[in-house]
């Protein structure tokens, strides 16, 4: 509990210093509006309904891209983790694609998919798929050989081995991969919307920059931060429920 208390103190301390700097005129209020002004902007944008619309657009994009990335990342990770010949073929390709930052995919994504939801789905997918894949692969490679042997000598066939042994044994490592993937996916959706969309939080920030509405720009940034924080917390909650059995061994 002390940890949580210190977290709250730190957070409000940060807000207070920011407010003080703005009130005392240390920072130019056009370049960095004060927390109170930003809060006012958040309220205005919420009341006129535009913030909700943009949030929903961004969430839908990150959700779709992330689901596809999770499905493909886990599937490829399981297959390459289990089969050495598959990993010999796929690993070099993955290792060559992985260092390309998702942002660098944006121009080609617009070229391929135009403007709208599709480039965002694609960029979220690119950002999220690698951590999911790498963690799943590492998890399967690290499974205790004698647990697999135990299952085999007890008569487990391939589907029971996958469902009751390989997947649950890998989950404690797959989950952090999913969490990191979702976080990167959330950054990617905003980056994609800055240039390749006509709705969403990224688009909203970009529009308001053009209109010189800095409070709205910062309001958008704050919303992104709060939602990212919430998603990470939700994933953590879900994770603890599903892999509670591994908690005490960490």
């Amino acid at each position, binding site marked *: 509990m002390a940890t949580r208390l210190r977290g709250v103190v730190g957070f409000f301390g940060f807000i207070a210093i920011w407010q003080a700097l703005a009130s005392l005129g240390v920072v130019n209020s056009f370049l960095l509006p004060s927390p109170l002004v930003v809060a006012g902007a958040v309220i205005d944008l919420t009341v006129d309904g535009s913030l909700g619309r943009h949030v929903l657009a961004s969430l839908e994009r990150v959700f779709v891209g992330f689901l596809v990335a999770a499905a493909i990342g886990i599937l490829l990770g399981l297959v390459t983790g289990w089969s050495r010949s598959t990993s010999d073929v796929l690993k070099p390709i993955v290792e060559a694609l992985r260092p390309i930052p998702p942002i660098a995919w944006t121009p080609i994504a617009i070229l391929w998919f135009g403007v709208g939801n599709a480039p965002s789905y694609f960029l979220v997918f690119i950002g999220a798929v690698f951590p999911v894949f790498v963690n799943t692969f590492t998890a399967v490679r690290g499974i*205790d050989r*004698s*647990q697999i*042997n*135990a*299952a*085999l*000598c*007890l*008569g*487990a*066939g391939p589907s*029971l081995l996958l469902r*009751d*042994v390989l997947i*649950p*044994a890998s*989950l404690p490592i797959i989950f952090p991969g999913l969490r990191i993937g979702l976080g990167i996916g959330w950054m990617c959706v905003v980056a994609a919307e800055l240039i390749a969309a006509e709705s969403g939080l990224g688009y909203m920030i970009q529009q308001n920059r053009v209109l010189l509405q800095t409070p709205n720009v910062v309001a958008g940034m704050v919303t992104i931060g709060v939602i990212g924080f919430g998603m990470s917390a939700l994933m953590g909650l879900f994770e603890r429920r599903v*892999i509670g*059995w*591994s908690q*005490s*061994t960490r």
Partner: protein
Amino acid sequence: MTAPGNGLQLKIEGVSKRYFVRRGQPPIQALERIDLTVRTGEFVSLLGPSGCGKSTLLNIVAGFQQPSEGRVLHNGEPIMRPDRRRTVVFQDYALFPWMTVQQNVEFGLKAQGMDPGSRAVIARDFIARVHLSGFEDRYPHEISGGMKQRASIARALVPNPDVVLMDEPFGALDAQTRVLLQEEVARLSADTGKTVVFVTHSIEEAVFLADRVVVMTTRPGRIRSQVEVKLPRPRVPEMRYDAWFIQTVQQLWQSLKPDWQERSDSDAKARH
């Protein structure tokens, strides 16, 4: 129930195993021309210093590994892969940590496609036989090492195998728990009449449990000698004070000492 000596259960024929570790280096010869038979219902201890190839031999019998030469027959058929007629109890338990004790013990029945109701009843019966009743819903990390090994023994017995293979099952347990579990295994093996191959590096444990102690040499593992244990079964704690038991343990120790001394010397050298 099967009385010992009814028939041939396992036949190990000229089994050698080489491990190729690195290109350009000579392979590690873990086993060299092992010939051994195990009768139905017999309890055989494989005794040898660590690193002599006991686990390798057990893994080959289980079907987890293939020999470099030779073969192993189970009821006359060559062993190609693991199957539920030969179940294994591992030193590190190898319980599934995401399953409760009950689910672990049921696993072999689930693999056979048995319905949940019937397998729960059977598993509970075996859990009672290893004295774990009341711990069905615990996860492995919530119970002690001795209890984990009891659960893993129940899990291995549930599919009704012909042979139970045990690889230093009590190696990680404290001395008292170890003695208690030896007595438990003595009772269970007498009750069920299962054929057991029990790997250990403890002379006392080998003699206390087995109908026959098979002594292996240091690497490359070969069979050095075999000792028939004439004590009646089930084995009970008092037999540890039997004159024949004490003498046999002592004689085995005298004959093995040079081998094991050399082993620990080379270990010590390797450490320095």
